[in-house]
């Protein structure tokens, strides 16, 4: 019995060590992509997102204005910063 334990113990340690180092070396999980508008939105083959993008300067200026004044209660996040992403 003792002999068997002595045989298995190093192997167990080796296995645990390998697992631990593998876990340690694993890069941090990527943070979820912060939200922005659906810039590349395509509906039924039509590039709807790019249609909106034609008005980008207009939308951007508006969002900057409401974000600067804190007047954006209907938005999930500070909209200008999110829009610029």
């Amino acid at each position, binding site marked *: 019995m003792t002999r068997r334990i002595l045989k298995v113990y190093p192997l167990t340690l080796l296995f645990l060590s390998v697992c631990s180092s593998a876990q340690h070396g694993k890069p941090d999980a990527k943070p979820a992509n912060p939200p922005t*508008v659906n810039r590349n939105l395509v509906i039924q083959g039509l590039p709807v997102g790019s249609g909106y993008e034609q008005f980008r300067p*207009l*939308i951007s200026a508006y969002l900057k204005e409401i974000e600067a004044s804190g007047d954006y209660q209907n938005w999930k996040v500070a909209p200008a910063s999110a829009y610029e992403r």
Partner: protein
Amino acid sequence: MTIDSLLARRCFLPLLAVVTMFVANTLHAQGTTGTGSAPSSDTAGTVSGATGGAAPGGVFIRTRAPSLATARNVHFDAATNSIRSDQWTFPLQVSIAEVKEIFDLAAKQDFLAVDITTRSDAQLFGLSRDGKVAKQMLVTDLLLGDIAKGYGYFAPLYKTAGDFKPQRYNLLSRQQFAVIFVFTSAAWRIDGSRLLSEPAKLEVLSVPTLAQRDGTRRFDLDAMKREVRDDSITENARHIMENEAYYRQERAVRDMQAYADIAQLARELLKQNADFAGLFVGQ
């Protein structure tokens, strides 16, 4: 050609798929459930008449004169950012530049409208392209139109009322639609010395349209007579109208009511032969 021969030629199934898609598109465009965005003949007629048959799939501000008692000594008071007369004070919610632009246009026409065309340009119906008024109207159209047609361009960032998930409009439907957001004032009252408007209920109209070669749209009068509707837009429009208080919190949308009020006041003062040119002297 018989069914058997069609099957034999192995073209039956693709043909059936095409026919099914056509019928589905047609039925989708002619859905009759819901009444939320039924074209109001009164409003649609007004829009059509004002725009020469062009269908502004955007924001339309009606400027019926409010019929106030005759105002004397009308002037702009920069200190309080208001228009004042001997009888009342009208506090302005927007900049003097926007007020002046609206007064200028109100002297020429009784509506303000913008329309984003199918080619991502815009018809402005007399508004200056560089002016703040057209810009705010376009932003309102982009935001509310995104919800009304269920595209979802702003969806990752914008909170709809009650976390509503708009239904997506079928872009490939045989019948195309424009959505018109109509702002106007229902009545006016003087509270103390303050002149206040009572906003009319926001109208969200779904209007069948015919696309033109230049990217603009015109009313499809035949489809309107048949009361052709789009189920998705009908549902989304109903949501917006039922939650208009929520959407009026958005600054651009809020400004639409301010514009409607100012335009109507301008029309009233015009009716009373007030001196527009002298109103903003030095501003």
